[in-house]
C-alpha cells in the first residue's frame, strides 16, 4: 500500500521450494514432498509469465481494486430477521450449547 513504491525489481526471483513451503504454511496447507516439487515448478511458470508486467510503465496509475466507483453503501438501520440459528448450526461439523465447537485452541506446551 505504498503508492510511491511502483518500481519493483524488473525480474523478481522465480519462486523456490522454500518460499512455496512458507506460502503453504501461511495458507494453512500441508504439502507432501512430491506436491512441493510439482507446485514449485507450476507456480514458477505462472510467475515467470506474470513477469511480463514489469515491462509496463505503471508510474502514476491508480491501482484498480474494483470496477465500480466505490462508496460506502448504507442501509436503513432497522432490525430484521437473521438466518435461523438452528438451520445454521445444523450445518456445522460440531455444536455445543448453541455454539460452534472446535478442538482446543491452546496446545499443552503453550
Amino acid at each position, binding site marked *: 500500500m505504498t503508492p510511491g513504491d511502483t518500481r519493483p525489481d524488473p525480474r523478481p526471483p522465480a519462486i523456490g521450494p522454500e518460499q*512455496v513451503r512458507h506460502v503453504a504454511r501461511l495458507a494453512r496447507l500441508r504439502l507432501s514432498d512430491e506436491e512441493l516439487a510439482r507446485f514449485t515448478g507450476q507456480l514458477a511458470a505462472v510467475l515467470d509469465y506474470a513477469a511480463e508486467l514489469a515491462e509496463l510503465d505503471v508510474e502514476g496509475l491508480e491501482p484498480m481494486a474494483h470496477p465500480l466507483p466505490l462508496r460506502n453503501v448504507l442501509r436503513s438501520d432497522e432490525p430484521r430477521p437473521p438466518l435461523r440459528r438452528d438451520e445454521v448450526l445444523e450445518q456445522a*461439523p460440531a455444536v455445543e450449547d448453541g455454539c460452534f465447537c472446535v478442538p482446543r485452541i491452546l496446545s499443552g506446551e503453550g
Partner: protein
Amino acid sequence: MSPTALELAAAVRTAERSARDAVAASIEAIAAGDGAIHAFVEVLADRALARAEQIDAAVAAGSDPGPLAGVPVALKDNLCTRGVPTTCASRILGTWCPPYDATVVERLERAGAVVVGKTNMDEFAMGSSTENSCFGPTRNPRDHARVPGGSSGGSAAAVAAGFVPLALGSDTGGSIRQPAAFCGVVGVKPTYGLVSRYGLVAFASSLDQIGPFAATVADAAAALAAIAGHDERDSTSLSDPVPELAAAVGRGVLGRRIGVVKELVDGVDRPVAARAREAAEAMAAAGATVEEVSIPQLRYGLAAYYLLAPAEASSNLARFDGVRYGLRVDAPDASAMNVATRTEGFGAEVKRRIMLGTYALSAGYYDAYYARAQRVRTLVAQGFGRAFATFDALLGATTPTTAFALAERTENPLAMYLSDTCTVPASLAGIPAISVPFGADPAGLPVGVQVMAPALGESTLFAVAGALERAAPPERRP
C-alpha cells in the same frame, strides 16, 4: 428440435402445455443422456415436478406465473439453494445445505422458472475445462472426447445437450463465455454489479458475475431480465435501472460503430480468427460501420488477472476452516484441524491458486505483483475506455482455440490459463460481454464470437448479439 425458453413459457402461460410436462421432459432427457455427459451433479426431480404442478395450478386459477413460466433451468453448483446441497464441486463443502437461496434463484423462481438440478463445475470456479471437479469431469456434448470448457462447463453442456433451455453460471475471467463458445451456446457476462452476487460462493469478489446460458440470444436476454437489478443484500449491486434487454435483440446494427479488436483476433487459432472476421463482415453487411481497433493493453490482461483473482481467492477461501460448515478433519488442536481440513478438502488447482494469491499478497512481493497487477488493471480499463469513445461495441474471438481434448492441459496450469486470454480483459474492466455461436472449425467444433460493450451497455450488446445470431452460418441447436 427442443422449444426455446420463450416458446415454452408462452405455451405454459396459455395452458397449451403443462409446466409438469415440460419439466418431466427435461428430467427424462437428463436421465437418458447425462450418463455420457455428466453435466449435472444433482437432479432435483421431485422438487421440480412439485414446483411445476404449482405453476400449472396458478395458470388454471387464472394467474400469470411469470415470463419464464414452467421453464426448466439448471444452476451452477456455486449458487446457494436452500436445503439443497451446494458443493462448488469441492470435497471441503461436503454435503453443506445452505440455509438460504441466492438472489438469482429467488428471482428465477419468481419469474416462473423451475430448477431441475445443479451442474458440475471446476472446483470453486477455478479452471477452464470442468476437469477440476471432485465429481469428475463433464464432457462436451458436441464431442465427448473434448472438454466443455469451464468453469461453468456443466451449465453450458446442459444447454448444449438440450437438457434444459436455460442455465446459470458464474464468470470471473471467462467462466461463462469460454464454455459457451466451446459448447456452441450463448453465454452472457453482465456488467459487474448488474446481477446480485448474494448467495454466489465467492471466488474473486471484484470480478465474479452471474449470468445465463441459452440456445438463443432472446432466451439469454429473457433470463438476464429475470435476474438483473439492485439487491440490497449485495452492496456491490448497482442501483441504476436495468438496460432494455428483450426489445434490443431484434433491433439490428444499422448505424452502429463496431470495433474489431486486433488483439482478440490476430493471436488466435486460424479457424477461430476466420469466423471472427466473417462475423465482422456480416455486421458491416447488416449496416454497421466496422473498423479494426488496436487495444495493446489487453495483451497484459491475462498476467494481471492470474495475480489478482488468486489474491482475492486466497482471502475468500480462508473461510473454509472446518469450523462452521462442510468438512472437518479431526486433529488434536484447532490449528492442526484447520490445516488437515484444508489439505484434504481442497483439490490441486484450488491449492495452487491459494498459494499463488498468498504469495502475490505477501510481504516483499506485494508491490511487484499485486499492486502492479492492479495498476495494469487500470491500464486495461483505460484501453477499453478509449476504444468506446469511438465504438459502440467491440468484437473479437471468445477463445483462442475451439474445445480441446480431455486431459490435454491438466498437467500444465499455464496452458490452461491461456484459454482465458480473450475473456479476461472484459472481466478486469467490469464491462458486459457475450459469446454467440458463429460457425465451426474444420473439425465441426463450435466457434464463439465475443461482443463487448461499455458498462451498462447491455442493450447494445444484445442488439449486436441478435444480429450475429441471424447472420451465423446454419447449424446449432440440438
